[in-house]
């Protein structure tokens, strides 16, 4: 009986899975998009809208149709990068939206002829990047809550910083950023990330790893005797704006909620503006700058990332009417999932240093190319 029920359930699921797989090409335009299209000059040349042409991206007549196969394949690459190297996957997702799918080049054609359309497409690209970070934070923060790892004071101030930053970024930049400006800033941040990756490969950057290896030998035995500390949980002992004390496993740690707010503000501003960076920057900030243990930081920062991304996506989409192209997001999520499944199986065959070397080269190339094109209009690479 149970077997029959299982088979019927699986058949039902198969029916559901095969039915609503994708969306039609003709996505209806929202008011803001319709206004932007109306302002564009009519015609068949670049930078013009041919109202009789087939609708493409976001339902814009004559816009490129995002090839979902290309989108899927690129997203598999992004998922692979996420699960082997980590942070660089977000940058690769951004590169997909900007370059691989042809959206950036399309937005640029309206730079002088229809600036409103140029900026609308740019905002759509930004929000598309944000979806990925927000989704991961949602899953992470739910799990950490059950493990008593959330520090309310830290989370609230990080979240407040994130909230102010996203409101500021959305209301000052939505509909105002040209694609070239976005591309330039994206490139600059990627270049800085590439710089950090290069630093980590230098002897000075590696010295921290050597200290950690020595420390592992020193404390391994102690850890074995203590057993599992994760069931302890975190408690807040004292709270003030200047200094908050928390206790974990009998140890006291302090942090300043003001610094948490400042960090949350700047990191969230970058994440809201570019759609990258918020996810992984919180934890290194809180562990390296604020000095909190990773155990405490991980869950709380995931919650803050979630708050920041929800506000950013909400403000962009609900209040500013920015649209995303759902079929592209859907195909990307499928591809990222597939890539993340494959990554662990293949990553072990490639040495970590080789992987890092490849991504350093990519970061420097993308950073330089986008910065030159975005800020200076130089198409060197």
């Amino acid at each position: 009986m149970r077997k029959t029920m299982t088979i019927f359930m699986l058949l039902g699921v198969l029916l559901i899975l095969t039915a609503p797989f994708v969306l039609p090409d003709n996505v209806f335009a929202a008011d803001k998009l319709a206004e932007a299209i109306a302002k564009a000059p009519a015609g068949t040349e670049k930078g013009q809208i041919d109202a009789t042409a087939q609708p493409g991206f976001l339902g814009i007549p004559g816009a490129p149709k995002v090839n979902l196969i290309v989108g899927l394949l690129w997203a598999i690459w992004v998922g692979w990068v996420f699960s082997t190297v980590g942070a660089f996957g977000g940058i690769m997702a951004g590169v997909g939206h900007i370059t691989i799918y042809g959206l950036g080049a399309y937005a640029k054609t309206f730079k002088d002829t229809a600036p409103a359309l140029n900026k609308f497409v740019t905002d759509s690209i930004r929000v598309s990047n944000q979806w990925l970070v927000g989704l991961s934070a949602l899953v992470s923060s739910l799990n950490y809550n059950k493990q008593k790892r959330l520090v309310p004071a830290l989370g609230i101030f990080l979240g407040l910083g994130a909230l102010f930053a996203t409101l500021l970024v959305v209301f000052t930049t939505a509909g105002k950023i040209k694609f070239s400006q976005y591309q330039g800033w994206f490139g600059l941040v990627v270049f800085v990330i590439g710089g950090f990756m290069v630093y980590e490969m230098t002897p000075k950057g590696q010295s921290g790893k050597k200290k950690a290896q020595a420390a592992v030998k020193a404390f391994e035995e102690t850890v074995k005797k203590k057993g599992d500390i994760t069931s302890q949980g975190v408690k807040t002992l004292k709270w003030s704006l200047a200094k908050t004390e928390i206790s974990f496993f009998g140890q006291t740690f302090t942090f300043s909620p003001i610094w948490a707010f400042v960090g949350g503000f700047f990191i969230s501003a970058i994440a809201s503006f570019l759609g990258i960076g918020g996810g992984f920057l919180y934890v290194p900030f809180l562990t390296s700058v604020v000095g909190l243990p990773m155990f405490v930081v991980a869950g709380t920062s995931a919650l803050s990332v979630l708050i920041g991304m929800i506000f950013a996506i909400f403000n962009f989409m609900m209040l500013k009417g920015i649209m995303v192209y759902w079929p592209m997001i859907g195909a990307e999520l499928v591809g990222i999932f597939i890539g993340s499944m494959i990554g662990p199986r293949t990553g072990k065959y490639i040495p970590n240093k080789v992987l890092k070397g490849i991504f350093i080269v990519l970061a420097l190339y993308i950073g330089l190319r986008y910065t030159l094109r975005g800020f200076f209009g130089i198409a060197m690479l």
Partner: protein
Amino acid sequence: MREQLDILLYHADGFLIFFYRLTADPFVNFIIGTICLAFMCVLIGELTVSLALKYNKGYFDEMAADINRKENLSISAYESGDKTSYRALNKEATDAWGKRFFTMIGYSAGMFWPLPFALGWMQTRFQDVQFDLAFPLSLIFGESAGYTFIFIPLYILCRIVFKYLRPKLPYFRGIQKILDHPEKP
């Protein structure tokens, strides 16, 4: 590929709109249909991510054990007063966490991939449908809101309901255990 996808969409549309035509009241129909759509998204997402967790369970456990070990080491260093070792080990734990964080993005994609397709389908049917908002919501969200405003809260509600159903469902019980204790080897 587009033609084949349009044919699939045609059949999907017929299947999905059925849930929006169950009663005589259009608003009630919209809510019921959207709840059904949201629940389908939850179920499909859960099934997808369960494949990931089963397929890569060993890798996931290895990562969790690595993070756990490095966290414990950093706390021991802090306890002994060795700040240099604490900072170095904390960084190692952070790097290990970072790898897991981005792997979670992949798993999250598995959980949420049906949503854009559902929202995209709703866009074809309900793009022009607006719901008047009462005070004080109208102060924050404006005078009216569209289908996304209804879908997302209902999706969250379906997720919460599924959370309570999951321990009772034969296949999903094991998945819940993996999700609840990712840091335990």
